[in-house]
């Protein structure tokens, strides 16, 4: 099992290398001059050339790529922002706790509400409760997050003066962003959980368990849910992967100073170090999350764990 994990981590390096080359190449060919953005339209051609020279942007593609890969993978230096000359890693790190906090809160609500409600829907299939939750979850999935965010700002902020509409500070600043960020996730999770549990509920082993007189709660949580968890884990894994990158809209609407806003302003300003650095960190995070989800599959389903172990043994035999 450890061998499997190490192999995956080694693949992570290869993935990050490919992502780096890809994002570098895309930015190299994207139109737009960061020098003109930094210096303004009133700058002369000479001033812009000098500015680009300072940052090595007048070098050839291969020269720039070489320097970038060397700095990133050997010196672990993601560079400094063009606009405020601060290290990308430091700026990203300063914002990460907020975005991570927001994302994890949304994910927690997603799990705490989504899974039980999905189970409830499945167990009360075709009743009024099931239909009501189905309608609500479809509403939740259809509503754009930013639209809901704007509505909540108007209602709870401007009209009722109940909650602050922007910024960070007390716990009150987190309420609306968390709600806006989690609604669609909860709705999706309800639908997925309902579907997964319904598939399992008809299985023979559940009928057998009932016939043996096992209490219903035990049937649900010890027999049904573990078997229904695989697709739910995939959904949650994807949601977890979006924890950092997916909150950009919520952060923009609520002026929540997180990673999403940092990336957005960097993209608008053609701040290449910021864009490259953020994409690379996000890619690493996403790849790591995928690995965690795969390992979680193994924990939930012993058959999958056995596959990982046999894969490792097979690889070891081939090496020998």
């Amino acid at each position: 099992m450890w061998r499997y994990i190490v192999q995956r981590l080694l693949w992570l390096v290869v993935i990050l290398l490919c992502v780096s080359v890809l994002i570098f190449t895309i930015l190299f060919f994207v139109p737009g001059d960061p020098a003109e953005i930094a210096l303004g339209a009133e700058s002369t051609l000479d001033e812009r050339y000098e500015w680009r020279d300072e940052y090595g942007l007048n070098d050839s593609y291969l020269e720039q790529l070489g320097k970038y890969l060397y700095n990133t993978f050997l010196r672990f230096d993601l560079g400094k922002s063009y606009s405020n000359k601060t290290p990308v890693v430091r700026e990203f790190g300063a914002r990460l706790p907020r975005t991570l906090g927001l994302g994890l809160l949304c994910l927690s609500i997603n799990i705490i509400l989504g899974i039980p409600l999905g189970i409830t829907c499945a167990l009360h299939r075709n009743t009024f409760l099931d239909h009501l939750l189905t309608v609500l979850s479809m509403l939740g999935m259809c509503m754009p997050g930013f639209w809901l965010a704007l509505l909540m700002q108007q209602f709870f902020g401007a009209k009722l003066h109940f909650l602050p509409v922007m910024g960070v500070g007390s716990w009150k600043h987190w309420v609306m962003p968390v709600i806006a960020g989690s609604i669609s996730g909860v709705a999706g999770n309800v639908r997925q959980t309902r579907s997964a549990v319904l598939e399992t509920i008809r299985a023979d082993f559940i009928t057998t368990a009932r016939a043996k007189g096992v209490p219903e709660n035990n049937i649900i949580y010890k027999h049904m849910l573990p078997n229904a968890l695989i697709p739910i884990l995939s959904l949650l894994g994807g949601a977890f992967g979006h924890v950092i990158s997916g909150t950009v809209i919520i952060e923009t609407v609520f002026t929540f100073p997180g990673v999403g806003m940092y990336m957005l302003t960097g993209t608008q300003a053609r701040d290449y170090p910021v864009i490259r650095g953020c994409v690379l960190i996000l890619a690493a995070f996403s790849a790591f999350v995928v690995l965690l989800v795969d390992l979680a599959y193994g924990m939930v389903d012993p058959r999958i764990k056995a596959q990982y172990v046999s894969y490792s043994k097979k690889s070891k035999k081939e090496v020998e």
Partner: protein
Amino acid sequence: MKKKALSLVLVIAMLATMLAACGSNNGAAQTTPAATAAPTAAAPNEVTLPEGNNDAVVSADAENTNYILPELTFDLGQFNINPLAMRGAGQVTYAVYEMLYATENGIGTPMTPVLADANRGGNNSMGLKGMDHEAGTTEYTFYIYDYITDAAGNKITASDVVFSFEQTRDYKQVTGWGDIEKWEAVDDTTVKMTTTRELTKKGEIENILLRCYIFSEKAFNDSPSGFTTDGCGTGPYIITDFVQDASVTCETREGYWQTNADLRPRSAEANVQKFVAVCITDNNTKVTAAQSGDIDMISNLVTTAVGPFLNNDQFNVHSFAANGIHYLDLNCSPDSIMSNPDMRMAIYYAISNENLANILNAVGVTAYYPLTAFGHNLFSDYQEKWDTEVNYVTEYNLEKSKEYAAKAGYNGETLYFLNANDTSGIVENLQNMLINAGFNVELKSYDRNTVTSYLGDSTAWDLYYNMTNSSDYMTSLWSHAMDPAAFGGHTENFIVDERFNELLSNALNVNSTAEDLDAFWQYSVENGYLYPLVRAVNSMILPKTISNVWLNDKNNFMPGAAYYTEG
């Protein structure tokens, strides 16, 4: 049957929700109506445009009651508090740091000494105190007071001034400093600046003296972040709290160095004890934040969004002339049909600035004014006589447009109109005007940064919509748009005309006369080189406790310099 009924209910519920949300628009975000709408009269709530920035006050007669407001919270668009960043948070840096000079009363007004010693110097063509310059030479001498200290108690000397200028230059966010050779400290209170040529263009000296904050070298080196997340200046405020991309808090500083009230300019006043600048870039969020009380005022809001604050018990709406203009470029290169002067005239006569402004103002407030020349009366070098001249800018004549189009041999070819996609409100109206006049116009809209990459390609566009601004003179607007040095030997719209360049150079000279400026404008009109469209009016949403505001030369609200009343 049940499922069908449920689906129907669901669809109706979703539609109802969406319509309810859309209908709750309270005027915070407006879309521009189509250009085919007839011009409408201004609504009763029209905001009056002040006559130039000198009158940009809530109440022109308000005097300083010397009331110190305890706290004020407002919005901040740019969040870079580094004094080296010229595109940073001006409201904060201007309060924490000072320059050698400041403008007396905003854009286009004379400079007044701040750190520069008002008791020395004065031997220069501008009559500027604190500076000596002999005409025909490339040396400029500045004198500073010998009792300047910063918030940490560091004494500011000439070597700190030199250090500040060098750091600002090396940060590489200032432009137009290419002719400065060096700065040197002659003694503790004297700085000499040497240039490669005498600075004879209008605005060149201002571009140096009003673009560099002065700070202590020791304070800069002691700063753990190089003034990126903290700061120490000579201004009346200190930074007490900073949350990246969220907020910055400033409080008045004990022991401000300039104790002589007669020498203390308006920019150095501290009429609010504490201010909190909150990073908000979106106009809708600004409106909601003000309505909810999260911020006390909005320092910069597009005038089309002021609706909720008109006739409001809590707020005043104060409008001020933006320091820029919106204009249309026609591609004068041989690659474009617009190189034909008749074709340019055909386009110009098909556009009505007045109609355009009326359409843009149809939301009920005056957000735009039509232009009659490439500038407006905010700038001291603008000439009022241009307002009444009859030319293609002031005249809208479809018959003339058709005549010129026929003369140019226009046969319905597609004209490509390049623009940034955040300007669609104005550009679509222009497109409609031209289509109504019989032109086939296709928009090429991209994000602003991509637009600049197409701008240099003479085959990529025929028309280009742009904005430009200036913080000192109208001729700087001309320079930004038309200086061949910025575009590699031709203007932004590919004009290659020695006479045009000569007249522009004369107009930009620091000793230029009104005749020089008029000569440039008249030549531009004769050849159909420039087309100004409208100027914008920006707005501030102020609480009733503010009786008078003061804007710096970048049109930034200065919280310390405003006048407040109690309650």
